[in-house]
C-alpha cells in the first residue's frame, strides 16, 4: 500500500527552528516530526511513502537514507518546482501512487500529530464504498479552520465551510485522507487546493465520507500548538501505559527522557517535558511543559517552562526561561538571565534579560 505525505514549504511559522532544518525534520517528542507519520504508516503495512516537498530536498534525502534502511520501508521524494498547493502534488506523484493493484492510498499532512487510526480508516473506506475518505476531528474553535459538515449517520460529507463566522459544526479536516486512484484523474498538474476544489466536487457527487478521529489531534506547525501537542501526545502514551515515559522521584506527570540524556540531583522534571538525546540537565533544575532538543545543556538551578530549547543550546545557571521562549540552534543563555517569551535565532548569545516577548535576531 502507498502513501503520500504533504511536506510543502518553508515552515516559516516554526522559525527559528526551521532556520536550521526543514520542518519535517524538527524533532517532536524526541523524534523527527515526519518519523511519527512514517512509523504509523509502516505499522499498518504501507510499503512505500512519497514525500511531496518543495524545499531543501538534499537535506531531506540524506535523512531519509538512514531511515529507509532502519525502517525497511521505501521512501521517495516528489519535488515541486513551483508550489502546487495541497492537491497539485498528488498529480505530480501520480506514477508513484498508482500501481496495478488499484488500492487506495493515504495522504497525510506533515504538520499533524495524532492517534493515526489507519486500520479503522481502511475498514471505514471499504464499508461506505465511496471514492474518498477524510478524517475529521472535533475542535473547540472551529472558525480557526475549515469545517466539514456531514450527515450524522453515514458520515457522508455535505459541504466544506472555510473559517465560518457562524457555527455550522465543530468537525474540521484533520489532514488525513484515504483516496481511490480515481481521485487522481480529477487533479490537474497546477496549483490546486484539495479542500477548496477537489473535495467539494467529490462531496457534491456524494462520494466523500468523513470519519471522526477519536483520540488526540494537533497541528503542530507553530510553537504554541507544538507545546500543546506534546502534552496531548504524552497523555496518549500514558493512556497506553507506555514504558517510554520516565519514572522516578524527580518526575511529575508525563515526561519523556532519551536514554542518552543525563539528569542531575535535586531536579524536578515535568509535567509534559521531552528531553532529547545527549542532553545534560545539571542539578537543581526545574523543567515543565517544555521540549529540550538534542545536545542541550541546562546548567544548575535553572528553571524552564512552556518553552522550546533548540539543538545544542545552553541555558545558564539560575536562568529563568518561560512563556513561549523559543531558542534556535546553538543559542546560549548566560547565567542568571530571564527570558519572557524571547524568540532567538540560531548562533546567538543572550547576555541581557528579555523582559517581554521579543524576537532576537
Amino acid at each position: 500500500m502507498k502513501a503520500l505525505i504533504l511536506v510543502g514549504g518553508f515552515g516559516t511559522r516554526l522559525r527559528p527552528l526551521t532556520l536550521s532544518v526543514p520542518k519535517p525534520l524538527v524533532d517532536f517528542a524526541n523524534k523527527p516530526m515526519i518519523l511519527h507519520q512514517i512509523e504509523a504508516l509502516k505499522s499498518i503495512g504501507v510499503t512505500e511513502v512519497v514525500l511531496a516537498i518543495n524545499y531543501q530536498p538534499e537535506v531531506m534525502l540524506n535523512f531519509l537514507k538512514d531511515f529507509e534502511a532502519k525502517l525497511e520501508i521505501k521512501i521517495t521524494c516528489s519535488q515541486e518546482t513551483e508550489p502546487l498547493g495541497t492537491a497539485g502534488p498528488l498529480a505530480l506523484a501520480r506514477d508513484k501512487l498508482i500501481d496495478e493493484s488499484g488500492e487506495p492510498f493515504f495522504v497525510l499532512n506533515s504538520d499533524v500529530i495524532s492517534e493515526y487510526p489507519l486500520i479503522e480508516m481502511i475498514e471505514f473506506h471499504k464499508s461506505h464504498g465511496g471514492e474518498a475518505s477524510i478524517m475529521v476531528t472535533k475542535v473547540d474553535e472551529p472558525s480557526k479552520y475549515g469545517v466539514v459538515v456531514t450527515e450524522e449517520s453515514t458520515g457522508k460529507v455535505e459541504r466544506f465551510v472555510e473559517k465560518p463566522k457562524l457555527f455550522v459544526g465543530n468537525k474540521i479536516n484533520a489532514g488525513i485522507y484515504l483516496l481511490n486512484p480515481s481521485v487522481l484523474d480529477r487533479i490537474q498538474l497546477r496549483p490546486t487546493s484539495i479542500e477548496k476544489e477537489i473535495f467539494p466536487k467529490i462531496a457534491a457527487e456524494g462520494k466523500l465520507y468523513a470519519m471522526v478521529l477519536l483520540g488526540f489531534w494537533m497541528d503542530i506547525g507553530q510553537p504554541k500548538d507544538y507545546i500543546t501537542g506534546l502534552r496531548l501526545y504524552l497523555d496518549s502514551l500514558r493512556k497506553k501505559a507506555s514504558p517510554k515515559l520516565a519514572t522516578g522521584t524527580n518526575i511529575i506527570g508525563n515526561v519523556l527522557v532519551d536514554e542518552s540524556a543525563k539528569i542531575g540531583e535535586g531536579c524536578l522534571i515535568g509535567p509534559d517535558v521531552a528531553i532529547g538525546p545527549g542532553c545534560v540537565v545539571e542539578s537543581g533544575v526545574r523543567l515543565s511543559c517544555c521540549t529540550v532538543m538534542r545536545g542541550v545543556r541546562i546548567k544548575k538551578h535553572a528553571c524552564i517552562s512552556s518553552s522550546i530549547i533548540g539543538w545544542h543550546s545552553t541555558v545558564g545557571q539560575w536562568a529563568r526561561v518561560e512563556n513561549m521562549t523559543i531558542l534556535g540552534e546553538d543559542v546560549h543563555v548566560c547565567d542568571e538571565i530571564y527570558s519572557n517569551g524571547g524568540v532567538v535565532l540560531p548562533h546567538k548569545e543572550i547576555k541581557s534579560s528579555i523582559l517581554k516577548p521579543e524576537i532576537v535576531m
Partner: protein
Amino acid sequence: MGGSEERVVAVIMVGGPTKGTRFRPLSLNTPKPLFPLAGQPMVNHPISACKRIPNLAQIYLIGFYEEREFALFVSSISNELRVPVRYLKEDKPHGSAGGLYNFRDQIMEESPSHIFLLNCDVCCSFPLAEMLEAHISYRGMGTILVIEVSPESANQFGELVADPVTNELLHYTEKPETFVSDRINCGVYIFTPDIFTAIQGVSSQRKDRATLRRVSSFEALQPANRSLPSDFVRLDQDILSPLAGKKQFYVYETTDYWEQIKTPGMSLKCSGLYLAQFRRTSPDLLASGDGTKNAAISGNVYIHPSAKVHPTAKIGPNASISANARIGAGVRLVHCIILDDVEIKENAVVIHAIVGWKSSIGRWSRVQASGDHNTKLGVTILGESVTVEDEVVVINSIVLPNKTMNVSVQEEIIL
C-alpha cells in the same frame, strides 16, 4: 619611492557566517561580504581600492566561510581586475592579528615589502596609495588609518593619540569607558613583515605565562589572560596598545567619509556613500534620465544593465537596482536597495528599504521606514522571496525570507 624591489600584498578580513548575526536577515541568504553596495559586492570596494596600490602582487581574503561560497566570486574578480585574488579559510578563531599570522607563509610567498590589512565591513575612500607613501616615509612597523569622530561616539571604537608632528602612535585604547581621544582606528592598516615577529612575540609570551601560571596563582586570576589560547592574538589590545609610544606605529589621517557596515540599515547608508563616490570618480557608472525615454532619475542612482525600469517611474536619490529587477509604471523608489530579480508593480512606493532577491512588491503598495540607520527597525528589510500584496503597507519592519505580507504592518519583525 616604490622601486622595483617593492611588492605589496593586501589582506582583507571578511568574517564568517556565525560571527555577524547583526547583518540578518540579509545574511541568512548571502555572505555579508558579497552583499551589494552601490551595485557591487561589499568586498569589491576595498578590492578595487587595492588596484590603485603601486606594485600590488596579490590580494588575500581571509574568513570563516566555506571555500565554495567564495570560489565563484574569487575567480571572476581575479579575471576582471587582472590581479590574483585568493580566499583562505580560517579553521578556528585566531583574533584579528592571529589570523594574519596564521597565513604568514602564503602572504610572504611573493616576499612582499609591505602588507595592507583591511576589514571588509569598513566603508571609506581607502586612500591606500597615499597611506603607502606616508608609511614608507615614517619607516615604522605599521601605519594605521585614522579619522576624527564626534567625542560622544568615539568610545564605540579604538581611540588613539598621535604626535601631531611625527604622526607617531603614542597611545591606543579599545572602546574606553572615559574619553581618551576623538581620533579613532578605521580598521585599515599597512605593515612591514616585522609585524609577524611582533605577533609571534605575543604568542610566545602568552605561552610562557601559561606555564608560569602553575607557579603564580595571582596570574591565574587575571581574567584577561585566563581564557585566551596562545595563538589568539588581537591587533588592538595585544599589539597596538603595548607598542604605542615605542616608535613602531604611525597614523595617517583621512578626512573623507568612514562608516562600519554592521547592520542592514548601515548598508543602505554606505551604499549611498559609495554612490556619491562614483559621482566624483566614475559618473558613467551612474544612471541618468529625465522621464521621457528613460525613467526620471534624481540624485545618485545605480541601475544594473539587465534591469528594466518603466519610463514613468521616478528613481532616487540613493537608489540601487540590481540585475534582472523589473520596475513597473509609476513606481517611486527613494533611498533603497532593490536586489536581483525583484518585481515592483505599478505605482508602488519604496522609501528607506532593502528589498530582497526575487521579492515581489504589489501595485499601490508602500514599503517604507523612518530612515534612521542606527535603530533596529529604522530601515525596512524584506528578505529573499518576500511578497507584498497589492495596496499593503509595510513600515519600519523586518520580514524574513519566503513570507507573504497580505495585511499592513508597522514596527514588526515577521518571522
